[in-house]
């Protein structure tokens, strides 16, 4: 008699699937369920009252939600694009160096080692209107005699958050794109220069298509981890003052933990999950397309 043996790959993947199911999937199902209830931490019985899509309706009609949502998308779009461009620039700068490149690469990885919360504190400190590095420097240089309220004014705070986020993540792009630049074969580049390309044309027509997959890997990796920005924002402004830098994540955190309205927070949480998944899937698809372009597809 033959017993059906599960295939080896399944056995090997099983621990991963179990742990992810237990820690991610089941809580997510719970949160999906609770998003259809008016669940409050302080009133456990409220978990069993079904209210349908009321939480979602509430979120989707809330001006607070939409401003936070819009601001989150805006921050992500600006941050990811700028990080990508600056990472590319940085990688190109380092790639051109002929001496001490190892040292430069090591320095480049510096911000990657900083915990996002540390980045938050660090830039909260740097942008502090009273004792911060930026204001101190501006004042000592005589550029202004006022204490610029970097973290209080809505626009300036958004800018400060953007700077902190970019400082912490640009090096991820730079490192990955630099790896891409190393992998570009030298021949086609030389062929292009002989074919009459200016340095810019060589970059545009040869180098860029070659490093495109690496750019998308970086974008995919970053978008997997994009909610790291929550740590930074929570420390720097926590969405405040007066919701002027509210992002989806800080709104969720406050609604859930401070207001204890878990059901409502979970409903918004689901929307944030779909946002993250959207970005990730989008970049994975781009990655595959770029790979196909170079004939690297599996």
């Amino acid at each position: 008699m033959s017993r059906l043996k599960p295939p080896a790959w399944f056995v090997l993947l099983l621990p991963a699937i179990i742990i992810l199911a237990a820690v991610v999937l089941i809580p997510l199902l719970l949160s999906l369920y609770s998003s259809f209830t008016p669940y409050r931490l302080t009133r456990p019985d409220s978990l069993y009252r079904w209210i349908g899509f009321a939480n979602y309706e509430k979120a989707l009609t809330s001006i607070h939600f939409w401003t936070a949502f819009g601001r989150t998308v805006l921050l992500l779009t600006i941050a990811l694009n700028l990080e990508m461009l600056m990472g590319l620039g940085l990688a190109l700068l380092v790639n051109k160096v002929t001496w001490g490149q190892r040292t430069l690469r090591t320095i480049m990885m510096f911000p990657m080692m900083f915990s996002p919360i540390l980045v938050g504190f660090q830039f909260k400190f740097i942008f502090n209107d009273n004792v911060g590095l930026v204001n101190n420097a501006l004042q000592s240089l005589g550029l202004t005699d006022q204490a610029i309220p970097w973290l209080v004014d809505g626009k300036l705070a958004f800018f400060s958050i953007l700077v902190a986020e970019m400082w912490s993540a640009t090096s991820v792009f730079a490192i990955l794109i630099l790896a891409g630049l190393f992998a570009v074969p030298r021949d086609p580049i030389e062929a292009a220069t002989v074919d009459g390309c200016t340095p810019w044309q060589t970059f545009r027509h040869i180098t860029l298509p070659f490093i495109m997959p690496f750019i998308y890997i970086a974008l995919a990796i970053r978008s997997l981890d994009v909610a790291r920005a929550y740590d930074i924002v929570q420390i720097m402004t926590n969405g405040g003052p007066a919701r002027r830098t509210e992002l989806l994540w800080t709104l969720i955190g406050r609604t859930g933990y401070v207001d204890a309205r878990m059901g409502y927070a979970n409903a918004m949480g689901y929307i944030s999950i779909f946002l993250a998944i959207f970005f990730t899937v989008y970049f994975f698809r781009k990655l595959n397309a770029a790979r196909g372009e170079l004939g690297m597809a599996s």
Partner: protein
Amino acid sequence: MAQVQLRSVVKKYGSLEVVHGIDLDIADNEFVVLVGPSGCGKSTTLRMIAGLEAISGGEIAIGERVVNDLPPRHRNISMVFQNYALYPHMTVRENLGFSLKIANRPQSEIDRAVEEAANILSLSDYMDRKPGALSGGQRQRVAMGRAIVRHPEVFLFDEPLSNLDAKLRTQMRTEIKKLHQKVQSTIVYVTHDQVEAMTLADRIVIMRDGHIEQVGTPLEVFENPVNTFVATFIGSPPMNLLPATITNGEVAIENGPSVALPSAFEGKVREGQAVILGFRADNLMPRGHSLPMEGQHAAFDMKVNLSEPLGTETLLFSSLAGREVQAKMLNPRPVSPGETLPFQLDLTRCHLFDAASEASLR
């Protein structure tokens, strides 16, 4: 007019000098092959002409123009690379038309030039494929096509055939030769394969350790090598070299027989001079299996250690004066190892080199 001139061109990497001030004049429409063992500086020289490597000293001129500091795009050249260097993300058509597109030529002109190149190299069937879907020979042809669409003043080839298998290499060699006759322009071609150099070149430049050893037509360098290096590098199998001394007006091979001094060298050697006697396998043949030797020649017996039948001839490996020499046998018959045969050496085609300087004494 696109002659290429190199004057005292030097290349240094840091303190390491790899090309030591070479001078070379390449005429318009000439096919010049730079040949030498790996590391001799031939590729570096080519890349300096292309502008891919900066020159550390001297002067390079293309046409009438000094191009020392000009980037490649201002030199009006094109280049075929060893690994083809095709753009993997472009189709064959796009690869061929790329340089013209970059130069902002009208689309109709690009199409015409691409079509023409495709016809010359019979690429028309693969125009919409990407390089990844082509065979080695096809890629090679695309690389050449890419070079010719621009009608440059100078073509540079950097070991273009070294990645092909033997049969394809012979075939492509012929195509390159035909191409030169068709497109009429100056070609500088780098290879380490002396057969390629002999068959393709109008003139061969033999390089070693960053120096030019000899420049000449294929026959010149074959017939009159200036030193033992060129003598062994050009021609297959390599020239046999035996140390000898001029004794009593004869060439006394070390630990071996003496042969008469070839008449071409009379008065050019002195008594007691240490020399090297050089001769090719084609001029050392067993009696009865050789070309008629009407001029001055020597005769001696040698034991055959190994024979390699090649069909019309057999290559014989024998020992003379304790050294291995290679000989040829025409109208071959089977030879068993250890068999002793009477050999004839055609002295009119022998070379003498000075033992110390290794330079030809002719």
